């Protein structure tokens, strides 16, 4: 299992292994689940209270379904750990963060300096994505 | 003959493996035989070229001729801009492509 290389949370990492979406429904005490690209993140919405870790798999980074899964969970109110796992590369880190990911377990270890630069690349953003950053249109028109 | 061709990584120029180096000119292409894949892997790994391919061609007294029209255009340049090709002064260059 790939190690978490970057984590933007203060709480203790969840030690439970992440179960599949199918198993999760059957196990009332599971607190960690893994979403594959084709899984429907909305299936988890009734269970957000007991979820502490959601891993979203990126078997290949060009399959961007995980971005929508992440936003769907955050929009539903999920505040637990949202971890990008697999083909997680330097140049996608910033956008993953914007979609709500707060931990990253890349298949192959990434250069820490390159990663820091990627996370910090954009001072401002054009869109509201629920990551707490004020989009440029909000800065232009302060309420 | 099995010709190895690629694009120079930095410049994008079309290049042909001569047996020991890369040339801009298809006439310099060597028959890479069974070594083609290894050559491509090595040269790409050294960040010299990208998009390495093995193509079919023939060599006769007129020179090297790639088998497919796309590769012949690639070897020459755009037929509609002879001035931008590798043979701007050759009026028959466009016919060679067909």
């Amino acid at each position, binding site marked *: 299992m790939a190690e978490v290389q970057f984590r933007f949370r203060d709480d203790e990492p969840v030690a439970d292994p992440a179960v599949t979406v199918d198993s999760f429904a059957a196990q009332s005490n599971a607190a960690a689940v893994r979403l594959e690209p084709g899984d429907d993140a909305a299936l988890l919405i009734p269970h957000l209270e007991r979820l502490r870790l959601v891993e979203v798999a990126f078997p290949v980074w060009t399959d961007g379904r995980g971005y929508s899964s992440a936003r769907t969970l955050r929009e539903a109110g999920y505040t637990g750990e949202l971890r990008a796992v697999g083909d997680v590369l330097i140049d996608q880190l910033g956008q993953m963060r914007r979609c709500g990911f707060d931990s990253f377990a890349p298949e192959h270890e990434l250069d820490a300096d390159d990663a820091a630069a990627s996370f910090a690349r954009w*001072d401002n953003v054009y869109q509201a994505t629920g990551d707490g950053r004020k989009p440029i249109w909000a800065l232009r028109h302060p309420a | 003959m099995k010709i190895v061709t690629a694009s120079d990584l930095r410049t*994008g120029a079309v290049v042909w493996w001569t047996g020991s180096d890369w040339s801009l000119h298809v006439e310099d292409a060597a028959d890479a035989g069974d070594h083609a894949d290894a050559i491509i892997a090595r040269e790409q790994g050294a960040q010299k070229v990208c998009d390495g391919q093995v193509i079919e061609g023939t060599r006769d007294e007129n020179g090297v001729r790639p088998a497919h029209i796309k590769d012949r255009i690639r070897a020459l340049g755009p037929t509609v801009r002879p001035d931008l090709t590798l043979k701007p002064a050759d009026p028959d260059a466009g016919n060679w492509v067909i």
Partner: protein
Amino acid sequence: MYQYDKYDQAMVDARVDEFRDQVARRLAGDITEDQFKPLRLKNGLYLQLHAYMLRVAVPYGTLSGSQMRLLGDIADKYDRGYGHFTTRQNIQYNWIKLEDAPDILADLASVEMHAIQTSGNCIRNISSDQYAGAAADELVDPRPYAELLRQWSSFHPEFLALPRKFKIAVIASETDRAAMLLHDIGIRIVRNDAGEIGAAFYVGGGMGRTPMIAPLIRDFVPLDQLITYAEACLRVYNRHGRRDNKYKARIKILVHEMGKAEYTRQVEAEFAHLLSQDIEPPLAELARIKAQFADPAYETGLADEIDLADPAFARWVASNTHAHKAPGYAIAVVSLKPVGGIPGDASADQIRLMADLARDYSFDELRVTHAQNIVYPHVRKADLFTLWQTLDAAGLATANLDQIGDIIACPGLDYCSLANARSIPVAQKISERFAANGKAEDIGELKLKISGCINACGHHHAGHIGILGVDRKGTENYQLLLGGSEGADCSLGTITGPGFGEDGIVDAVEKATDVYLARRESGERFLDTYRRIGMQPFKEAIYAKESVDG
């Protein structure tokens, strides 16, 4: 036109830094070509048949004279002295070096230009009506909405790894001058019965292997929900678009396979949810953008008549100018289709000349059309003659707009590694044939479009006459299609029958136009006659066995 504020400028500057860093890491071998390729595509940099090709964005086809001037300078400084204007209102350079690309992007950023998302599986340049802000028939100028969508789509983190490319067009008139129905999303700004302005969304159009006309998904989205609705459309696509087969990955396939009703249902559900997420910019932002598209300071009391004594000038006025909403003004179209020329190409000197003429005659503004021509949107009628003379001296005044010589052609096998056949030589031969036979003006409106492969970048499905280049056992071969149309009367061309060689296709086109000339009824264009009499008469003429003498 839109001017960057400090935020917009910072975004393009950061993008230049990001790409410079990515190129450095690529050249050092820190990332592989497989990892790098999608990154360079998101900055418009393709590896093409002869070199790297850079596609620079011209947002909704609008640019200033100083931007145009820099595009000419880039052609000289980094390329081989020319550029190519594309069927999506962009410009391409064919001889770029990777090691120069970050500097080129930095030069572009200095005039508020970029190559962001002009390729790759993301939302591409948003196109619009080339007569926006000038034509009398528009409801409003569509470009502020296109600019709002441009900012929303730029670096949108959820939509940077879509199943495939995504193209959006925005118009605001009943006449569709942007081929809106052949886009992944086509938006028409409309007014409802209550007099409110909103947007009609058409989703699932496109060309390529399986051309489709976009169905109407929602007839009215209020302006203060425009971005939210677009986001819902994209999210459903991102989640459900096919990723198993590159040739079935566009949204048109999803809408077709899911069915319009189900796609609409899912979008509406996502839309209803997203309305609670505060992702819509306030109307003040749209107002801020709109203020930058205010009318230029038109003079009043201008002469409305044009002195048409010079017959060549008169021909150009008749074909290449269009009515303007302001009295005393006209819209003028520069043809990049000289007889026997390369459609859409312009030399660096021509590009700089066009920039100067924009400054002198068109409030410093130009447009790129999806038919690969250039438009001066606001020209005083009194200036048309001088403008025409200057254009004519530079080979830019061919009087052929929308005629058979105004050919749309992709770069084809001369430049493109995806192509199966050359398209430009066919365009040149047809252009020369019809200049020689003198029939072009009599034929009148005939939109001829040529693609060098099934990817259809030449939009051949939407040509009144369309030509598709194919590879027939290593030899270039050309299929003929008739009856396509890109406008509000959108239709897809029908293939006539067996294909032709390069000379045969030119003959076939002439035979088709001869059928039209023989059979047309009063007021009919080629397209109208075809629609009335059908394929059969054309087929008979095109494939008739030649009589052999002796």
